[in-house]
């Protein structure tokens, strides 16, 4: 039976269909979850996709974190289920307190839409288990608020616990310590600004997102 990935659609999400397509192209099952649902419908993994959930009003993710589905995602994550936030999804997960830190406006105040080089810094997460340590991946970014920020104490903790998952080879947005992605202490919640779902076929210019999404399809199932 193939792994079922639930992709959350908020009003204003715009990458959810890309994630569905990418997961299906790798042999997984994928279905949409609505932000107003109070459950994650028994899926095996959850993706919070990119876009502008609730218009990014107030701050990206500030309103989305109160969507009914978020309580279910908190519970799912607490039981060990794999949760990945991509781009706006990363912003939502930081606002929801599932990941530390915050995403600020890019240094240089430019909306960035380009392909970046990423280095895999930890393979001990639900998004990188099938990648190799130090592997360089070419994955697109597409964001205005991707400048990862956190307190010096949080940064020290992330580094000490091997929770910086991906770093940019050439920092595009001012993120502290070149951070492109981080995980929670349980290593089952990962957030990243780059879009692995947009690097899953030759036609898209790169297939380097494949090892990341394959990792998600092999993620451990939530308890209970």
């Amino acid at each position, binding site marked *: 039976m193939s792994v079922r990935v639930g992709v959350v659609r908020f009003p204003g999400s715009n990458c959810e269909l890309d994630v569905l397509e990418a997961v299906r192209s790798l042999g997984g099952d994928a279905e949409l979850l609505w932000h107003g649902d109070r459950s994650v419908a028994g899926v095996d993994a959850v993706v919070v996709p990119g876009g502008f959930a609730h218009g990014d009003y*107030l*701050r990206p993710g500030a309103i989305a974190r109160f969507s009914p589905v978020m309580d279910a995602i908190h519970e799912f994550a607490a039981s060990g289920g794999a949760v990945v936030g991509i781009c706006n999804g990363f912003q939502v997960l930081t606002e929801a307190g599932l990941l530390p830190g915050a995403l600020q406006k*890019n240094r240089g105040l430019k909306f960035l839409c380009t392909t970046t080089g990423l280095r895999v810094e930890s393979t001990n997460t639900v998004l990188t288990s099938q990648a190799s340590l130090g592997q360089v991946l070419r994955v697109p970014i597409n964001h205005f608020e991707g400048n990862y920020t956190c307190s010096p104490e949080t940064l020290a903790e992330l580094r000490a616990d091997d929770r910086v998952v991906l770093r940019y080879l050439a920092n595009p947005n001012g993120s502290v310590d070149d951070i492109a992605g981080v995980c929670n202490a349980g290593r089952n919640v990962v957030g990243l600004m780059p879009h692995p779902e947009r690097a899953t076929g030759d036609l898209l210019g790169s297939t380097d997102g494949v090892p990341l999404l394959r990792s998600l399809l092999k993620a451990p199932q939530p308890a209970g």
Partner: protein
Amino acid sequence: MLFSVRVEVSLRPGIADPQGSTIERSLPTLGFDGIRGVRVGKSIRFDLLAVDEESARREVDDMCRRFLTNPVIEDATIDLDACEGAPA
């Protein structure tokens, strides 16, 4: 009592403010010299019904902490005035 509330949300000290730095760099080109420390924030205004000033302030503090600011990067300054002549 009705209170007129103004919440000013600003980036915490030490958090880079790319909009502020851009404005700071632009001002001298328009002939405004001697400017330092430009910070850009946002202002949120509303009226609030509460029994007294203390409970109004407590309520606004709570909404700042839970919703109006992201405490990781932002601080809030709260201004609160009782509206004169408003019905209790």
